[in-house]
């Protein structure tokens, strides 16, 4: 689309193309945080390779005064720092946009475009001139382009200055170098270009009640607040930073003040199978225990997940989804594990699954996951998208109610056991399909044999049909009853669950799709098309989901996988007829954008002015 300068203020997307391993991450983080502190709604997407050093990497930033922070692939500005990817980076700038590049060496004339403005800054040259050490020169080149952007985009210099002071307060020489680099870029841009560009920033007041954090960090903190004491894991992108965060917060908050020893135990397992076993072992003992992993890990853990399901052992699994199948694209986002998690393991299984849409929900759902796992004595999955887990998100401040106490579910204490005549592990005493549980070592009467082999309601080994069926039928009812206790769906649109009040069309989505769907829905409203929207936040589905599907003539299911997994889950788990649910999928590994949604809808309903088909 042609660039329209009227929306250049606080409404644009730009992209920084660098080489990974050169320190650009901290420069880009600095940029993102500066815009956030200027009070402007902002989002950052780190598009990085599965590699340590030398390959192209990108950082995309979108600012939007109206608060739309889904990924936008329409880049009005590209900071092209990597000759390896010049061609595609320059090609991606929208017509009328700008390219900021390092002109220490002249740009290949073949790369030039007539419809964009090229802003050459001798970044490498200036850094060679002003910094001595080779490594410093490489690192400061990144800070220098930040300096140029400060001038070009009118970023608040005081904010940048304050951030550098905070960051390097203990390292004067680094602070000096960073100030110098910022200044070099800033001065050069001021002297050579007409600053600021039409594309620029103005201070707002939209972020003061917000924080900026990744989903993995928020989830790791949630595990600390939930009272988890045992974490077992095997390193895997993109979930590693969840355990890193848990470890860091434990070191900060979980060291016993008297002895200096740890009120937690983190085990780096030999593989994901062992990590799952450790979680199950610890949970069997009564600890709150969890493991963070990604799709390949869930594949490996599947046998154990079936054990936890059948033996009814609470356990919490975080799946930060990456692009599958197999190794797939480990650093790209997808929602390809919905089916995997809903039914992980052989035989008849079904699990409780939670789907956060931002880091705030990662924190809240982490706590909820432990409560649900213990209440229903079963595995619970918290399924994040890589985009949510690894990228920084602007979210409302997290809140904590100090009156919260964990729901440990139906656990018999030593006193309880003293009173009972005999304890049977899998007996449905209360008629709610949830049996009572005991913890090892508490009381002689509490002992029983935990097994993944056939057992009757008394916990005894069985190969008898009736006894077997009685137990597995109860377990199914138990898990299905959790539908009313998982985070309820978020519904947009008045009367959206009422057949008489609902609009004709409904949208359903999940996880990180949410933000692009919200933006697309607003866009549709501007064009006079009202659509209702429901965001799934938990599985099993409940009545609200069923009602929403029932209330609409047609429902578009928007998700990020090839096989329409959410649509199929809805078809299997509700009474909705097949033809009513139409799929809109995008599974190329990038976060969803408005264009994906509108483009997908345009294939089915008349919504867009000519020439505005979905681009990605």
């Amino acid at each position, binding site marked *: 689309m042609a660039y329209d300068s009227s929306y250049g203020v606080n409404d644009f997307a730009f992209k920084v193309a660098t080489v990974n391993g050169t320190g650009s991450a901290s420069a880009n983080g600095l940029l993102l945080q500066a815009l956030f502190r200027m009070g402007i709604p902002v989002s950052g997407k780190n598009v990085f390779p599965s590699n340590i050093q030398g390959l192209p990497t990108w950082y995309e930033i979108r600012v939007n005064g109206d608060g739309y922070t889904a990924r936008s692939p329409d880049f009005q500005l590209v900071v092209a720092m990597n000759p390896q990817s010049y061609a595609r980076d320059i090609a991606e700038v929208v017509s009328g946009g700008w390219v900021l590049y390092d002109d220490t060496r002249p740009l290949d004339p073949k790369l030039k475009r007539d419809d964009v403005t090229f802003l050459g800054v001798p970044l490498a040259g200036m850094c060679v001139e002003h910094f001595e050490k080779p490594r410093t020169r490489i690192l400061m080149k990144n800070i220098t382009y930040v300096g140029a952007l400060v001038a070009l985009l009118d970023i608040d210099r005081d904010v940048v200055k304050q951030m550098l002071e905070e960051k390097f307060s203990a390292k004067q020489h680094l602070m000096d170098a960073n100030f110098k680099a910022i200044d070099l870029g800033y001065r050069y841009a001021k002297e050579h270009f007409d600053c600021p560009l039409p594309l620029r920033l103005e201070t707002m007041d939209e972020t003061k009640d917000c924080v*900026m954090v990744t989903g993995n960090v928020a989830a790791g903190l949630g595990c600390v607040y939930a009272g988890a004491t045992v974490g077992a894991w095997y390193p895997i992108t993109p979930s590693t930073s969840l355990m890193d965060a848990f470890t860091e917060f434990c070191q900060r908050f979980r060291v016993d003040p008297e002895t200096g020893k740890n009120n937690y*135990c983190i*085990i780096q397992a030999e593989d994901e199978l062992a*990590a799952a076993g450790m979680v199950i072992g610890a949970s069997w003992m009564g600890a709150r225990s969890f493991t963070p992993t990604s799709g390949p890990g869930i594949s490996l853990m599947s046998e154990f997940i079936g054990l936890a399901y059948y033996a009814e052992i609470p356990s919490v699994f975080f799946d930060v989804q990456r692009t599958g199948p197999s190794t797939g694209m480990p650093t790209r986002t997808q929602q390809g594990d919905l089916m995997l998690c809903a039914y992980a393991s052989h035989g008849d299984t079904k699990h409780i699954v939670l789907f956060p849409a931002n880091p705030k929900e990662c924190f809240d759902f982490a706590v909820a996951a432990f409560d649900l796992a213990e209440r229903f004595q079963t595995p619970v999955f918290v399924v994040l998208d890589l985009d949510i887990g690894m990228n920084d998100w602007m979210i409302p401040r997290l809140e*904590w109610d100090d009156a919260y106490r964990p729901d440990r579910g139906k656990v018999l204490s030593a006193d309880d056991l003293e009173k009972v005549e005999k304890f049977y592990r899998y007996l449905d005493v209360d008629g709610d399909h949830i049996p009572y549980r005991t913890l090892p070592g508490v009381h002689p009467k509490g002992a029983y044999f935990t097994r993944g082999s056939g057992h009757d309601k008394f916990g005894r080994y069985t190969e008898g049909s009736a006894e077997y069926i009685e137990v597995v039928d109860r377990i199914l009812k138990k898990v299905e009853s959790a539908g009313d206790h998982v985070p309820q769906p978020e519904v947009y649109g008045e009367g959206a669950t009422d057949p008489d009040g609902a609009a004709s069309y409904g949208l359903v989505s999940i996880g990180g799709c949410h933000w692009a769907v919200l933006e697309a829905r607003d866009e549709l409203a501007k064009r006079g098309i009202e659509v209702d929207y429901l965001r799934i936040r938990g599985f099993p589905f409940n009545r609200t989901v069923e009602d929403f599907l029932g209330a609409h003539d047609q429902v578009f299911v928007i998700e990020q996988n090839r096989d329409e997994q959410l649509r199929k889950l809805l078809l299997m788990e509700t009474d909705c007829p097949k033809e009513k649910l139409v799929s809109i999928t995008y599974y190329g590994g990038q976060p969803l954008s408005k264009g994906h949604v509108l483009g997908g809808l345009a294939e089915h309903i008349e919504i867009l002015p000519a020439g505005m088909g979905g681009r990605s």
Partner: protein
Amino acid sequence: MSYITKPVARHPAMRVNKLGLTPRDYEGAMSTLCAGCGHDSVTAALIQAFFELDVEPHRVAKLSGIGCSSKTPTYFISEAHGFNSVHGRMPSIAAGANAANKDLLYVGISGDGDSLSIGLGQFCHAVRRNVNMLYVLENNGVYGLTKGQFSASADIGTKSKKGEVNQQGPIDAVNVALTMGATFVARSFSGDKAQLIPILKAGLRHKGFAFIDVISPCVTFNDHVGSTKSYAHTRFHVHEVVETDFVPIRTQIEAEYAEGSVRSVKMHDGSTLQLRKVAEDYDPTDRAAVIDYLGKVVRRGEVPTGLLYLAEAGADMHDFSDTVDRPLVDIEYEALCPGSAALDEVQKEWW
């Protein structure tokens, strides 16, 4: 032997331990293994060991994987918590359980298929982690429940019941444990209760991963001529390297051995082990020398037995993690949750 039920009557003169319990109180369900199975002798020895150590039955956690061996936790201490998990993965369950509650007495029962094939990785890593538990490998060289396939501990040239000859070299569990840094490594024979019971007791009292490889013949699939894990072959080729006496804490040491041949080792809880070397110059605390010596014995076609290696006072999984002394499951929630004020502090850094 599962067609008879156990009698409930007790012999009035049955021995009673310090807790007032009899050996019967350490028994479990009736075994469903084949009559004469070596595993049942191991079970009997375990019952005796627990009884003699005055262990509180409900403070025991007994775990296993899958296979004939892994059925045996059902057959001892009914009042202990049991966990019959998945094939080859019991070590990870035990590690997680121990991480959560270090105060229970953990005993894992495994087999050669469970520990040396499907579960070799978990076995090795449980050793490395030095999980505080007794780990008994009931080793018969054969898969029982699936009817007679060779296991990874079958020796080269050993014959299956069907006449097939094994060509792949065996994995020697003792050697693996030693190489992985195990702090307590023993081998025994299910047919030798006198040797097995003191070793089991020592293993239960050892702080860290106590590994016992027990040759436990499979009477149905691997007790014939041509098998190197049969009763007859094992009896004939046993080479006892070290005799072990377990002396409980505060008990006078009464055994008399020739001077110089006995080595007393203090256990973590204050009890004592007396190791009498049968072989000259055998030092059960010198890992490299033990590996070297055992290699020579094995090459002669003999089965070295006894408490072969011991390193007391090593760091276990909890020491590596520097966890608090009390079990994590006993820590009240209030000490685990940082609260709302801390959350505000954390979020200042997210601005």
